[in-house]
């Protein structure tokens, strides 16, 4: 059964107001900017964004008013440092977003628990830190088989995961390579999955290298074939990172007005990713 869709259809059908969204699991690679921009165009609201690190996409969603809460280890613009919209929203009085701080490992452990359908994972991280005591996603517990104390990390549920793959078949079976971040756990934890692929391939191509099939179609709801979906983040084997685009965004978003102007130019006045790529290369 073909799951092929457009980004607009997939976002309209599978991303709902109030959802818990994972849209930044590649750790600086394969970030689904095209779907994030479509979420902004469709005016989704009250989202909770989860992720280890998001290079700029989460800042864009916050700046557009789509976000109520973040459950993350790091938010900003990796090359430039901070994310201006994240900071404005966090520092506003009262704050416009709530933030649940994780570390990269404890985030991944919580996500994996959700992916495996169990209530929590455990870690030796967090001892002696203020992260542990700031919210109730962590509980110090005793090892039931010994005397050591560890931290339990509550499972991190996900309504919709949006991931970029190098290639996929029409059923959503996808080959992914390069560093994976939390790609596997995000897809397995989510209730709904959107795959954005650089290339559509025949199922025979997928089956020729099953070790590369990191996303099974049985978990996927929509496949969007969209070259450049991750721009300006890199896609190993297809696209290098566009450093200048990250720097330009950083400069343009120093003020809220600058953010609005940037969003009009690159998101609202651009109908879809094909138009974005055309504008980029004009």
């Amino acid at each position, binding site marked *: 059964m073909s799951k092929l869709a457009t980004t607009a259809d997939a976002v309209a059908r599978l991303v709902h107001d109030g959802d818990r969204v994972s849209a930044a699991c590649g*750790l600086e690679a394969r970030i689904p900017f095209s779907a994030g921009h479509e979420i902004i165009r469709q005016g989704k609201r009250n989202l909770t964004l989860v992720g280890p690190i998001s290079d700029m996409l989460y800042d864009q969603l916050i700046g557009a008013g789509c976000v109520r809460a973040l459950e993350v280890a*790091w938010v900003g613009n990796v090359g430039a440092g901070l994310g201006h919209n994240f900071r404005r929203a966090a520092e506003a009085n009262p704050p416009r977003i709530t933030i649940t701080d994780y570390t990269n*490992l404890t985030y*991944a452990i919580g996500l994996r628990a959700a992916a495996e359908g169990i209530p929590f994972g455990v870690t030796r991280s967090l001892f002696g830190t203020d992260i542990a005591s700031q919210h109730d996603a962590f509980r110090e517990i005793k090892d039931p088989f010994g005397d050591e104390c560890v931290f339990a990390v509550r499972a991190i549920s996900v309504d919709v995961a949006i991931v970029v793959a190098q290639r996929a078949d029409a059923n959503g079976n996808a080959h992914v390579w390069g560093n*994976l971040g939390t790609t596997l756990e995000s897809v397995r934890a989510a209730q709904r999955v959107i795959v954005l692929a650089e290339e559509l391939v025949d199922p025979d191509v997928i089956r020729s290298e099953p070790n590369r099939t990191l996303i099974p179609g049985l978990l996927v709801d929509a496949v969007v074939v969209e070259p450049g979906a991750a721009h300006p983040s890199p896609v190993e084997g297809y696209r290098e990172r566009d450093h200048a685009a990250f720097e330009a965004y950083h400069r343009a978003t120093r003020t809220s007005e600058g953010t609005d102007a940037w969003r009009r130019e690159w998101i609202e006045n651009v109908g879809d990713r094909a138009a974005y790529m055309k504008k980029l290369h004009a």
Partner: protein
Amino acid sequence: MNARTLMIVAAARQIADRDVVFAGMRLPLIGFAVAKSTHAPGAVGLFENGLIREVPARGMVVTMGDGPNQHGATLATSLIDVMGMLQRGRVNVGFLGGAEVDALGNLNTTKVGATRLPGSGGGSDIAAHAQRCVFIMEHERRRFVERVSYITSRPRGPVTLITTLGVFALNAGPARVVSLHPDVTHDRVIEQTGFALEFEGATRTPEPSDAELEAIRTADPTGFWTGASQ
């Protein structure tokens, strides 16, 4: 000799041959490349996005997911796989930076007063599990405080702190000066540090060797990280 060059070389010298290293980004990444091409050819670099490298990246790397950091990697896997090895105790030395550091080696990368910072990333985990840590920071009094206002990262082992002024030892007895960079005075360090330091035994940070300078030029040809072009 600019401070960044001294800091990179000091960072490189913290890596022993065959060390397993969480090298991170920016200056430590260049330090890893320098160590690999001089005294530590057997060092292995782990990256929390899921990469393991045995050869330094060729070309500019801004984020660990960039093409040059992917190309030539030995292994590409998941975050939890690499950070699981870290938690298991496999990492000898981890590199970190932060907004605030204190005499006990605690780091704050989360919030200072009303200012919200990006957060831990993998830093808290690296501090918790690496056998020893190396911090690299700008040396300013507002960053070097008696107690950080928020503990993002609590190091398990000893910390070597490399700054724009010198090299310091934390979290292993009283905070201590290991070496001062050339032309840096005791008074200047005291003035820029919000906690007490022991100076006994302090030396001068050695100048980089020709081989180290050559390795820096190779790893940072445009001077993007070392500021040589500025």
